[in-house]
């Protein structure tokens, strides 16, 4: 019990709380609302429209399009949030109340919990920038995100009407199918890095070059070049599975508007609907963060030292580590933002798959390719070491 009152323990609790609050309230939730905004602006750009450009800062007509072409519209997420909170929260009479209420939280919570194991920076003043450094980080992400299917299933079932039910059923089979493909796709990276701990995978990439950019540590090598082949295959299958896992177009069958009205959230309104929305985008951010950690070197930028002012270009080590710690965090979220842009770009470019095509792609292609890729990686590793 002494440990519970020691300063070490208080320090651990304090820093963990600070990191959690920073990550969720200062980074991810604003990122979610601005991803929604980016989605609308980018889609407008792609379709040659204007998009939301009126609600600027200050939140009035003064911030309209005449004031500034760029700042106009940046207030839109705040206006959206207020709208979601103030709309009537209507619960239809035919729903199963308890499950109807619990479903939105169940789709939001797992997405946030997965963020706990993401190493979003090196160190700040010696404190590692990961909330929970566990040795099975990758598996933890897969496990918790597999729980998020309950939110969608329960929403579909408790709504007690046709379209949500069909959406829920579709989502269940889709998520179960693509979980396998996603898990197997990531195995080559785990084989190469020799660890399932996310901070250690990033550490490996700092010393041996990023998975997707193997020469980023400044060294060439035949083994690395050979391993690039399975890594690229793994990256492609993993990203495709991630699209399906987060229910994004071209795989957004659970909520396809043309057939199912709005899928599992047809009966939801106001903040409950917004929670599904937030959950989907948080899952997207968590998924992008996982891709960044596994393939794109995490918080590392070639030549930039870490938070203890070590590594990188020697002359930069004279600058205090705190600054590099902040640069690392910024680099991580810049990479995540770039991936989110790809998510949006794909959504407004590709048409939706048909349901049987989706299942066929998952079980007959992604699954098999990922499985063969594991043997390929293991073979190359066995030959080059």
């Amino acid at each position, binding site marked *: 019990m002494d440990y519970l009152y020691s300063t070490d323990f208080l320090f651990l609790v304090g820093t963990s709380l600070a990191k959690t609050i920073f990550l969720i309230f200062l980074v991810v939730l604003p990122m979610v609302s601005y991803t929604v905004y980016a989605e609308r602006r980018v889609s407008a750009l792609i379709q040659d429209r204007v998009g939301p450009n009126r609600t600027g800062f200050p939140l009035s007509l003064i911030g309209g399009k005449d004031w500034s072409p760029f700042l106009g519209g940046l207030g839109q997420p705040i206006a959206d949030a207020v709208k979601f909170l103030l709309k009537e929260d209507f619960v239809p009479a035919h729903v199963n109340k308890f499950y109807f209420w619990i479903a939105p939280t169940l789709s939001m919570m797992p997405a946030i919990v997965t963020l706990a194991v993401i190493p979003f920076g090196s160190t700040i003043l010696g404190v590692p920038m990961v909330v929970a450094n566990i040795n099975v980080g990758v598996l933890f992400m897969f*496990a918790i995100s*597999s729980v998020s*299917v*309950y939110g969608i299933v329960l929403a579909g079932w408790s709504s007690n009407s046709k379209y949500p039910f069909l959406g829920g059923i579709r989502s269940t*089979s889709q998520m179960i199918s693509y979980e396998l493909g996603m898990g197997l796709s990531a195995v080559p990276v785990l084989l190469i890095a020799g660890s399932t701990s996310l901070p250690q995978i990033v550490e490996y990439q700092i010393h041996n070059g990023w998975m997707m950019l193997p020469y980023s540590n400044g060294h060439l090598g035949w083994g690395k070049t050979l391993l690039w082949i399975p890594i690229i295959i793994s990256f492609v299958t993993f990203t495709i599975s991630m699209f399906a896992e987060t229910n994004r177009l071209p795989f957004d069958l659970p909520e396809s508007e043309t057939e199912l009205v709005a899928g599992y959230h047809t009966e939801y309104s106001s903040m409950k609907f917004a929670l599904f929305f937030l959950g989907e985008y948080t899952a997207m951010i968590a998924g992008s963060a996982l891709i960044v950690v596994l393939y794109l070197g995490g918080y590392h930028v070639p030549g930039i030292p870490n938070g203890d002012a070590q590594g990188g270009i020697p002359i930069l080590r004279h600058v205090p580590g705190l600054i590099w710690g902040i640069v690392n965090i910024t680099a991580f979220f810049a990479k995540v933002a770039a991936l989110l842009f790809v998510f949006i770009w794909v959504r407004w470019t590709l048409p939706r798959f048909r349901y049987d095509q989706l299942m066929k792609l998952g079980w007959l292609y992604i699954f098999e390719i990922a499985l063969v890729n594991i043997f390929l990686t293991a073979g190359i590793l066995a030959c080059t070491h």
Partner: protein
Amino acid sequence: MSPILFYLFAALTVCFGIAVVANRNPVASALCLVVSFLGLAALFVGLDAYFIAVIQVLVYAGAVMVLFLFIIMLLDLKAETRRKPNLPAYVGGGLVALAFIAQLWLVLERYSAAHQPFPTMWASEGKSIDDVTNVGTTLFSVHNLPFQVIGVLILVATIGVVVLSKRELK
């Protein structure tokens, strides 16, 4: 793990385990089983067995129970919720459970090895055990043959399932 957390999660596991049996609604039962599994996973974390805990969530809560729930929802078991609780069955089940606990208690009381604490598994100062590596090396070195046999068994089961479901299609 702090004893408070142990009792909390143990209570969670047991209470929701009881709720699985006590609930009349099959969907509610299935969900209670999920919570019970999560409590069990938390107990594994308390033993520093992160790998087992995560696999528990991934396989049971994330895959098996989703399929259970899927089937229950498709079957739409309305009759089950209206059925009256069967008192003799409750009493009988309770007695069997009590007898089992009593047996377990008596056996463990007389078994000397059960009174000794488990050997600690810390690899070195301040470093947690790499349990993924431990599980992997143990499976592939000490228990290699049983592991392979289980692999073949699972393959047979998979092929059996495919054959059975294909036959029903015709």
